[in-house]
């Protein structure tokens, strides 16, 4: 057996896989009463969150939708308008925009977060804080020099805009992922190093799986940051066929009339993919992990 295969095996043997098929979290089980109260409080909070969205639901089915909440004049015409071909195109554009932004941002951020978490980097603390807070510059101001740059380089289309959106999420993501990596004990990596694993193996087999919930949170952040962005695609994408969802909403807002019902219907449709994404990912992360005796003391 080569040394490599040996060390792979040893490293893999130290941690249980991140995805445990059994979905129960490893928390001491509360009493039945405790569980019931917990579910109740959670449901109350959930209803409180959903309450403002009630208007969305009712207005989307109302042919005479307006600001007030009222029983709808039932119609499906709003959903018809919301699924017109150009609107569906904008949904697809949103996927592309957010997907590219997430991949670019998460990859760069995860690597950088690992280095910042584990390695010695001079002036790490202040630089991190400064970069983080520089992202507090209002986007509406920042977009002016960015537009200038992109116009000169002829980058006024969806891909460069997606990369820019990814970059704007990076300060946050680096912080987030680094925060999670800091919480992973270093002993595992040291053990792996003794087994002569190189950095890449450590990343993919030790730290990576353990930091997956954190990386996942960062990825979701980058996705949502891009999914809800309005001013960046408005300014940086010149082709109307490449515009994403939030721009399409303005198709229902004119100077002399606002089609509330259509807006509500489209917004519900626009929320659906993220809801599904969350539902899927939460299944993946339900497992949690355990260090299963890998560390003593």
């Amino acid at each position: 057996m080569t040394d490599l295969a040996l060390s792979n095996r040893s490293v893999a043997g130290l941690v249980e896989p991140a995805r445990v098929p059994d979905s129960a979290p490893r928390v001491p089980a509360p009493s039945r009463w405790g569980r019931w109260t917990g579910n109740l409080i959670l449901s109350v909070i959930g209803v409180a969150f959903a309450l403002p969205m009630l208007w969305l639901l009712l207005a989307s089915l109302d042919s005479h939708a307006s600001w007030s909440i009222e029983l709808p004049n039932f119609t499906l015409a709003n959903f018809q308008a919301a699924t017109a071909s150009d609107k569906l195109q904008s949904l697809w554009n949103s996927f592309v925009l957010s997907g590219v932004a997430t991949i670019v941002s998460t990859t760069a951020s995860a690597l950088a977060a690992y280095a910042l978490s584990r390695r010695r980097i001079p002036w790490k603390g202040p630089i991190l804080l400064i970069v983080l807070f520089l992202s507090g510059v209002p986007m509406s101001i920042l977009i002016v020099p960015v537009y200038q740059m992109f116009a000169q380089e002829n980058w006024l289309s969806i891909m460069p805009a997606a990369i820019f959106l990814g970059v704007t999420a990076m300060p946050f993501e680096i912080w987030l992922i680094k925060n999670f990596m800091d919480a992973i004990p270093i002993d595992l990596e040291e053990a792996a190093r003794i087994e002569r694993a190189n950095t890449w193996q450590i990343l993919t087999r030790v730290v990576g799986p353990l930091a997956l919930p954190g990386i996942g949170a960062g990825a979701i952040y980058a996705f949502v940051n891009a999914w809800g962005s309005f001013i960046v695609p408005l300014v940086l994408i010149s082709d109307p066929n490449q515009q994403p969802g939030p721009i399409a909403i303005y198709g229902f807002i004119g100077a002399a009339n606002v089609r509330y019902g259509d807006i509500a219907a489209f917004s519900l449709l626009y929320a659906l993919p993220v809801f599904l994404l969350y539902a899927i990912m939460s299944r993946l992360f339900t497992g949690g992990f355990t260090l299963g005796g890998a560390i003593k003391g």
Partner: protein
Amino acid sequence: MRMGRLTRCALAALSLAVAAGVAACSGTAHTATSPSSGNAKTIKVAFGSTYVFDTTGLTNKWWNQVAQQFEASHPGIKVQLVPIPGSYNDIVNKLSLLYRNPSTAPDVAEIPTGQIGLWASSGYLRPLNSELPSTSWWNEFPAVVQSEGTFGGKVYAVNQGENDSAIFYNKKLFAQAGISVPWTPHNWSDILAAARKIKAKLPGVIPLWFLAGSGSGANGLLQGINNFIVGTATPKIQDGNKWVVDSPGIRDSLTLLKTVVDEGLDASESQLFSPNAVTTPLALFPQGKLAIAIGSNYYPGNWTKFINAPAWPAAPQTMGVVPIPTEHGGGIASTLGGWDYAISANSGNPKAAFDLINIMENRQNSIDAANWAGWVPPNKTYWTAPAFTNFAFSQALFGQILPHATLTPSSANYSIWVQGMGNATGQIVQNPNTTVNQAINTLKSYVSNQLGPDSVETLK
């Protein structure tokens, strides 16, 4: 290694300074590039894609229509449409970004009337004086419409379509309240009298829709208090480079608003502060909840089935339209504003750009635009065209009002005056104890704080 607090702060400051320094070296002045040879093969046309016309579908229909007509008559030159989504602010912002870069500056752009002064002063626009005399349409524009694009004797933009204002009233509700129709208010007191009668006889109905607050921005003034200010003996809002914050006209208008609000003749605060307060009467009139409103020319068109915003087949029989009287009578008061065409100073083919404008100002296209965007066409010979007058009721009346309308300022700091006036009128609605003096003070202190004490003026 822990760094001292001082070291960290110094580092932060240093990196910022470096960044600023780099930026300072890299770009300060951008000068406009010299115009190119003049026979480019593509002309770019920028316009609002969702906000200006009543629907996106109509927007595309109209612009494709004019582009096709142009390309048919100009083989070899293509029209590249640059639609700008979003609402008013987004259009202005995107346009201003497009213009900063010679490669993205559109040859022809659709600019709001209120911005022309700004655009002209930045050197972005090409004067059109030499081309206009040879057109069939320029001299048919009323003088006030011609002046909206004219600065320092040069015409920088020509009108695409105008909005003006008039009083809309519900004839049925008037009959119920015992006011004789057709109703012709001769002065402001007549308006008050009718509103008071409505309040007395029909308690569940809003008597008068009088906009207030800063929620609707400049549009809120255009369809609100400005229609009264321009109907007084001191209609001026801008005097040279000073802003009028106190005048008999402004005081009388604010007093009128205060009377209306104090007597409960206006809509509720919630309704007036809504960002869509300007178009709420369109929904309230069909529901019979509103008696009188200062409305605009696009109301009748919106109520047709074609525009459907909302469709109200009974509108022509139920609604009466009458010009807004001046304060003491004897004249018509109205604001005006709309959208204009302008050609870029750096256009690669100014002649082709002007040809496009020529096509857009022809009878068919101009009337189509007017009907599909809720405008009055600037050319007075079109006001009597059946295609225009048959589209919706009382369209012709709005054409007749147009020459009597008064322009609002389009210079750089008007938006600050708008915000101040919005704060003042909003204060009157929110706090019943606000006196007119206090409201004037709000306007004066806001504008003078933002622009400096020498920028405000009181007219006697």
